[in-house]
């Protein structure tokens, strides 16, 4: 039973950031801009958030510090995503190239700043993890469910679910969501009824930047105590989660859990008795989520429901 608790808790640590970042991907792609820079935006967001924690640890503690760090990560990710929005909306440039540039920029910039700011040019940013909630009051005492979802938890887990609910409401129940989706499906039609396509696309990209920033921080905090300017390709996995989830928030949730479980197997194999004794080296386990992604994509891409205008720059003059 303890193993089951552990696996579920671990799966949460990996699934929630995937969920948050993939939802960011849903917003930007539903608006018609593809964003392969999610990985870079995660790194920048995590960097800003962790650096804030590292600096403020003495003054503020506990959940307040974490919440402030999350806000900072979101803001930083959003500002960073402005570059992508500008390139893909105003300059009508190739969105993959712009995304590649940002993906390259983010870790280089984070490492550069960390090495210039920290004493002795240290690259890793240390932080004390004081954010774990051993047991949520009342809910943590419920048998089984308490152990599965309300012990050894982080507020970020619940934040992930809140973001999911908000995303569903915004995308399907608000004027903004309808307009955003229209810009991703048929921007000219949207334009003809007076929707500002540029503004909508900016909004989509900025939301994705904010969510990716949060996702980056949420990924680093439960799994480590120092940040090495990498999120191990998680932004790319989030893209795959988004595709596997067919750009729909609820399906994205299931996709995120599937990948989270894969990743848990990859990282927690040493505590799972059957897997620990099998003579399989760690590098092979690390490949598991990526291989699983490829296989899943192979079978789910044929009937792809991608937004029709995604990755095509909107040009008012074209037909």
């Amino acid at each position, binding site marked *: 039973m303890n193993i089951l608790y552990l696996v579920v808790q671990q799966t949460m640590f990996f699934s929630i950031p995937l969920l948050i970042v993939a939802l960011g991907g849903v917003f930007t792609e539903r608006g018609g801009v593809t964003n392969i820079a999610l990985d870079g935006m995660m790194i920048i967001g995590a960097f800003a958030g962790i650096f804030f924690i590292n600096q403020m640890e003495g003054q503020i503690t506990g959940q307040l510090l974490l919440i402030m760090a999350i806000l900072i990560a979101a803001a930083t990710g959003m500002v960073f995503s402005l570059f992508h929005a500008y390139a893909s909306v105003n*300059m009508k*440039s*190739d969105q993959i190239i712009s995304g590649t*540039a940002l993906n390259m*920029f983010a870790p280089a910039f984070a490492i550069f700043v960390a090495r210039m700011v920290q004493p002795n040019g240290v690259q890793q940013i240390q932080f004390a993890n004081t954010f774990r909630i051993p047991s949520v009051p009342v809910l943590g005492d419920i048998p089984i469910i308490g152990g599965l979802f309300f012990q050894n938890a982080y507020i970020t887990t619940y934040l992930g679910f809140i973001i999911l609910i908000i995303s569903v409401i915004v995308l399907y129940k608000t004027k903004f969501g309808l307009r955003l989706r229209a810009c991703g499906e048929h921007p000219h039609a949207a334009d003809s009824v007076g929707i500002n396509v540029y503004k909508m696309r900016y909004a989509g990209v900025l939301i994705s930047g904010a969510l990716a920033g949060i996702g980056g921080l949420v990924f680093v905090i439960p799994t480590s105590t120092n940040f090495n300017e990498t999120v191990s390709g998680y932004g790319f996995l989030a893209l795959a989660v988004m*595709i596997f989830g067919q750009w729909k928030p609820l399906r994205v949730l299931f996709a995120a859990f599937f990948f989270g479980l894969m990743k848990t197997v990859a990282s927690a194999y040493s505590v799972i008795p059957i897997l620990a004794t099998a003579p399989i080296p760690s*590098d092979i386990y690390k490949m598991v989520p990526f291989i699983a992604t490829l296989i899943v994509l192979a079978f789910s*891409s044929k009937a792809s429901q991608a937004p029709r205008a995604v990755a095509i720059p909107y040009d008012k003059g074209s037909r």
Partner: protein
Amino acid sequence: MKTLKKFILGEGFNKASASIFAVVIGLIFGFIILMVSNRTEAVEGFRIILNGGFSTGAKGTGQVLYFATPLILTGLSVGFAFKTGLFNIGAPGQFIMGAFAAIYIGVKWTFLPAPFHWIVALVAAAIVGGLWALIPGILKAYMNVHEVISTIMMNYIGMYLANFLTKSYVFDSTKALSQNVANSAVLPKGGLDYVFFNQLGSLKDLSTVNSGIYIAIVIAIIMYLIINKTTFGYELKACGFNQNASKYAGINAKRNVVLSMVIAGMLSGLGGGLLFLSGASGRHIKVVDELAMEGFNGIPVALLGLSNPIGIIFAAIFISYITVGGNFLQTLNFAPEVIDIIIACIIYFSAFALYFRRLIPWLIKRGRGDKE
């Protein structure tokens, strides 16, 4: 005067000036970063970057060519895929798998005599790189999986697999690097050892550069001929422009997608072979969880070289030049990552190329006040 005007308004110059624009903006941005982080040493640091490999004499120049060799190949790989309408972001995976294949044969197959040993190792590197790209190619052609996503997954799988295989078969645990390849598998110097060395007393401090650079240039020329002078190249380009039209014209588009991915992968794999078959002073696989930079840098090389094989040779030398320069920045306590920042800026601004291309002729026309 007429010819000059024709040249300036011509397509070639126009495209190249967009690249140069991107490079200049990238460098300016790098300078600003240096200024912000340490004002007093920024100018000196920027001079070091601009001096690039030249700051260590003939040996440094040789090193620039040595590190340009894989970049030419990965640049060709990305550029060739661009020409056929595919974005091969998978060069890092293809590169490292090719590198492992070359090292494995270089270390283990010592029964092969000298010239055959390195030739077989290079061929194996190209084949393994090609196989690594075959999977995304098939997924793209028959399963509708976007090649950007699948090649990124293949990058991570390749990185972990190459690390695992290196640790299992060709590992030098005292240095935590892959083993040196046998002498017979090291690429011959091809006369370059008479040019690129620094004299240290009676000793010659040799550069690592070897005939790999010749091979890279020959491959670039071959790729130029294939793209521009053969029916095969024409078909591939046609698929890149408009897949439906080329299908209508009787071109087998699916087969071409797979083929062009495989060729792109072979180029990257060969790049891995050329870099790593270089003796004790050359590069070794470091078995860390980091994607190969040589692969990613193929993207700026292809963009700056405008996917033209000849342009790619010069772009690769440029990127290698500032990277080698960046390594000397550490003497001033600057982190060498500033070079990656500059390269990222260059990529970002080359994405604006389309915009610049419209802007430059407009500026020239306006500058002349529209006298005609």
